């Protein structure tokens, strides 16, 4: 994957993509604002959500052990996965044991994060996505570009083409003469998926929440595919990040209000599915829970960055982000795009790659993301904190061990420039000499084509004319003329 600025530049030039994104994000943005405004206690719900998550994270070991005990007592089997490879191995082995070659999936970000579909495919197992947008992405050999609306970058015409060309290869073909009307597209997906739901013997899910006191897992969704995946198969395997645990059933009360309003602008999500272990004569016979770390405890060790683990994946930050709107989700090179991705990915994966080191800079620090976040993650604060890690290096925790990383490569010129700036700015005499020099040479400064680092500026913007007299000279002259110093 190229670093963010390069990928974003390509996306900016794609007018169809920008049009699709602009339309979709602005629609959800306005609806969310209205849905949130309906609740007089929104600020308190937001503070409560942040507090519940913070308290849970502070005692994460305790709540995870409680969760394991509750799930086991309810007849489930708990597995612990330190990283993506281990999680994939566990799930692949579990599916193999059933003898099945095909599984159905409810949309899950954790399994995208670890590349589970690819791992299953390598083991000869086909994973069928059943979320409508995920299905579009999967059939199109594409990558998701939004947390909630993975196919947000596609318009109706593109979706029709994907269905017509690809559905037959994986199951029931798209109906003849399919048009791009939403109803027809939804019906085509429904027919295609219904066959898979009724045939599948293994389901794979993620979860929005895990309740420690009861061992209950919760998925919220809008299409009903989640309920199908969670109740019809004989074996259910849920892969969930460890930060999704909450202490009690009562804590759900806060999040079941803030999540749907923040994500789909609904007062309540259409389907809230909850499952607790196994029950005779109802739902899956076997239930496995794979608890995924994959960089989360390392993130937890960072005092500033850990707030990213509060995230409930509502995607409100994506929908208000002016950078996401222009760059699109793919530029972030991760299942977690947008502002939350820009702080989560470099913490889960580290900042060693050029792409991951560029993500904390994928923001103008306008703060719109922080303003809408229902769990009050101060995303700009974490962005700047991670920028510091990139350019200055510093302490990080890698696989539980505290270590110091060196500054990322490619920042030497920038560091020199900012150090020189600090040197001059810490000496008002030098600053003034520079200003006077610029003032004298002001007619020589081209307003439309600067050289060096200024070139990127003048590609689309003129530079302001340098004034003849800086403010401090005016002040001094005025004081002198007034008979002062």
């Amino acid at each position: 994957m190229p670093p963010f600025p390069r990928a974003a530049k390509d996306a900016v030039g794609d007018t169809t993509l920008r049009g699709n994104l602009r339309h979709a994000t602005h629609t959800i943005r306005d609806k969310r604002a209205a849905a949130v405004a309906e609740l007089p206690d929104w600020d308190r719900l937001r503070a409560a959500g942040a507090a519940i998550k913070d308290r849970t994270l502070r005692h994460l070991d305790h709540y995870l052990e409680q969760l394991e005990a509750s799930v086991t007592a309810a007849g489930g089997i708990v597995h612990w996965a330190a990283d993506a490879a281990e999680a994939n191995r566990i799930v692949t082995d579990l599916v193999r044991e059933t003898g099945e070659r095909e599984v159905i999936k409810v949309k899950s970000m954790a399994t995208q994060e670890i590349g589970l579909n690819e791992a299953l495919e390598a083991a000869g197992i086909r994973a069928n996505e059943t979320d409508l947008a995920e299905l579009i992405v999967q059939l199109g050999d594409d990558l998701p570009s939004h947390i909630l609306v993975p196919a947000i970058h596609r318009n109706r015409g593109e979706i029709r083409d994907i269905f017509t060309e690809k559905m037959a290869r994986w199951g029931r073909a798209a109906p003849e003469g399919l048009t791009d009307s939403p109803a027809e597209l939804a019906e085509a997906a429904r027919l295609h998926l219904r066959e898979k739901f009724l045939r599948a013997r293994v389901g794979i899910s993620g979860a929005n929440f895990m309740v420690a006191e009861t061992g209950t897992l919760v998925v919220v969704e809008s299409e009903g595919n989640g309920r199908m995946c969670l109740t019809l198969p004989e074996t259910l395997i849920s892969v969930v990040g460890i930060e999704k645990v909450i202490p009690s059933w009562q804590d759900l009360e806060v999040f079941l209000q803030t999540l749907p309003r923040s994500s789909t602008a609904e007062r309540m999500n259409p389907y809230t599915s909850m499952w607790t272990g196994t029950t005779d004569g109802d739902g899956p016979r076997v239930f496995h829970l794979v608890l995924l770390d994959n960089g989360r405890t390392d993130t937890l060790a960072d005092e500033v960055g850990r707030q990213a683990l509060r995230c409930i994946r509502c995607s409100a930050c994506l929908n208000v982000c002016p950078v996401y709107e222009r760059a699109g989700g793919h530029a972030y090179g991760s299942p977690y795009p947008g502002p939350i991705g820009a702080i989560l990915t470099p913490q889960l994966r580290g900042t060693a790659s050029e792409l991951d080191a560029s993500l904390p800079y994928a923001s103008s620090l306008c703060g719109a993301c922080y303003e809408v976040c229902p769990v009050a993650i101060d995303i700009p604060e974490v962005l700047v904190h991670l920028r510091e890690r990139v350019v200055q290096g510093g302490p990080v925790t890698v696989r539980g061990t505290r270590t110091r990383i060196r500054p990322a490569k490619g920042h030497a010129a920038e560091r020199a420039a900012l150090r020189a700036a600090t040197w001059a700015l810490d000496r008002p005499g030098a600053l003034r000499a520079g200003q006077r020099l610029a003032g004298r040479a002001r007619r020589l400064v081209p307003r439309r084509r600067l050289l060096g680092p200024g070139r990127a500026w003048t590609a689309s913007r003129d530079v302001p004319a340098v004034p003849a007299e800086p403010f401090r000279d005016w002040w001094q002259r005025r004081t002198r003329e007034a008979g002062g110093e």
Partner: protein
Amino acid sequence: MRVALFVTCVNDTLYPQTGRAVVTLLERLGVSVDFPSEQSCCGQPQFNTGYRYESEPLVRRYAKAFEGYDYIVAPSGSCAAMVRDNYPRIGRKAAAEGRGGELAELAASVVPRTLELTEFLVDVLGVTDVGAYYPHRVTYHPTCHGLRMLGLGERPRRLLSAVRGLELVELPGAQECCGFGGTFAVKNAAVSAAMGADKARNIETTGASAVCTVDNSCQMHIGGTLSRLGSRVRPVHIAEILANTEEVPFR
């Protein structure tokens, strides 16, 4: 009441007329303003790009330059927000790294005294009608740091609404970032330019002859984009509008 002007390095170097406007305005309102010449830059470019250590000498310089003043008034939402939001962070981190509490104390001492110009006018002086005259159609872009970090709210618009002759027109998508973002404009030039172009188009649709903000760094980006697109809309800092009266035009 001892009031100091923190003119900011951008205004000092590129927009001195904004500093002159603040002095003119405050003196007209009966406030005597001082300009401590030891001031320079708040350190935001360094800090926001990740060079926290490089911002520390400038935090120290700021605190020392403005020692003893009751209020430090800055015609920049962004620089005032840097002081109020980030100085305490910089101080705390230095202390946590075992470098003593001196920087934290210096940083804390300036936080409650640093105000953006419109905050000073409305909250401290208690005025919204400053007696200004500006016979133009003006649209207002609330810059991000003033809007979200400082929470300036309606203060700038209330001040503008009281200006005689001024017709204030709504800016579509006003709360969206213009795309400047300091070094973001250079590091992610394509996205920044796209954001700037959208902002410029929205400004054009208002039919205003001037776009007003409380931040000249954003104006540099917005004005530079408008100028490149051949627009006739002028960027103007709120201080320059408020400094202008019918009797004494501000130039």
